């Protein structure tokens, strides 16, 4: 009986420690930045698909209350596309090249009391996201229409992202608390442009139209960073 009570006491103590309220800086503006790596899945024209890895960085500027945090967030991701079909400016192209993704949006996060490690609390959040995806084809075949090497395709997309992670709880943000999060994002293109990127100092948009069919992108990323100030 005594042993059982002892065990129950230790279980109770462990749970109490695990559910201790977060002790961290609050009611302050905060800028966070980090790096991310992950995988992207993209569907192109005519049902073509690609799945590739990439890296990037992310920044978040917002306000932190005790448990809630609201930030303007941006995720930047560089990757590759392989054997995808695209359509833009009445042209159809198949090819390989580089892929750039930059997204912006408000992100609302909630910090839970649960601590898997000492001073690290779980959090989750989400928000809408607007992005511009740029595809610069390096090796391509023009199926129809006209498309030159100096041209690039850009997709304006809208979607959302969900985050789940752990964040270090420090008394002051000047101690640069660390965060590690898992990001899932979905984007669907609403407008496609063909841009002449021959002269980097001058942007020449050749055409803008709605994408012929659904161009969708999924991201799974691991992101890690710190509170800068």
């Amino acid at each position: 009986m005594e042993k059982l009570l002892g065990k129950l006491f230790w279980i109770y103590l462990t749970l109490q420690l695990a559910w201790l309220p977060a002790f961290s800086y609050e009611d302050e503006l905060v800028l966070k930045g980090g790096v991310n790596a992950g995988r992207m899945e993209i569907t192109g024209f005519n049902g073509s698909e690609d799945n590739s890895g990439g890296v990037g960085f992310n920044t978040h500027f917002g306000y932190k209350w005790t448990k809630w945090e609201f930030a303007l967030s941006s995720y930047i991701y560089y990757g590759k596309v392989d054997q995808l079909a695209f359509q833009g400016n009445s042209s159809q192209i198949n090819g390989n090249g580089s892929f750039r993704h930059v997204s912006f949006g408000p992100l609302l996060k909630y910090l839970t009391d649960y601590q898997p490690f000492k001073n690290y609390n779980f959090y989750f959040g989400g928000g809408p996201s607007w992005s511009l995806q740029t595809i610069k084809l390096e090796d391509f075949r023009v199926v129809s229409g006209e498309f030159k090497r100096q041209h690039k395709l850009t997709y304006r997309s809208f979607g959302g992202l969900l985050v789940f992670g752990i964040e270090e709880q420090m008394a002051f943000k000047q101690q640069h608390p660390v965060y590690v999060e898992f990001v899932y994002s979905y984007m669907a293109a609403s407008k496609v442009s063909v841009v002449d990127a021959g002269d980097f100092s001058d942007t020449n948009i050749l055409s803008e139209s709605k994408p012929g069919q659904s161009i969708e992108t999924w991201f799974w990323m691991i992101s890690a960073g710190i509170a800068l100030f």
Partner: protein
Amino acid sequence: MVFFSEFAVAEKVAPGDKLKRKIKKTLKPGLARPISKKQAEIERMKAEEKSRQRVSKYYYTYIDRDHTTEENAKNIGAVYLISWGIYPLTQPDTFRKEGSFSNYRENFGKLTFDQDEPFWNWFVHPISGSQLFLYYRANGYSRSQALAMSFISSTLFEFTVEIYTEPASVQDLYQTPILGAVLGVGIENLSMYLLNTGNAVGRFFGHVLNPSTLFWFYEGKVRMVPRWDGKKSASVNYILEF
């Protein structure tokens, strides 16, 4: 080499010894008794060590303080006026070819994703943002406040200046102040390190990276006077000019 000190001479002078009294009168304070070669060598090394030390005249830092609404308005106004001057000067071709007041009217209130190359969005704009951030830091704003002020200034630029040639861009609105602040913190740390090395090359590159430290509005330049008696006690006087 032989060193003298006033106190040591006083010990050697016997009452009635005119010659030694004369020596005492002619010796200046700081000169001393005949000492051993070993002590002389120690003194010489100390003097040499002291001569090798670089005395930094100023200490460069950032002093955060609160600002009145009037000061905030003045700073935002000053940056806004400067941006009207800098924009046509730095991009004369774009300003001449693409700029017009009819464009201004058409672009007013518009917000788009620009199609610019990464050179502009991930290099030029963050660098401009970092200098804006460092301008506000030099004026005594904390890092968070400097970022908030940069946000206001770059938003005003995007929506009321740059629209003379092109509509406001989402990337520029976000990346100029945010990536600018990230870069600005790095430049701030590096420039403070270089400025406080005390050597001319370090100071030169410190000012090149962070030009706001050269101007009258920079509030973190602290006059530093080091004092050392050559024995045990050392102190530093800081003089801050408002």
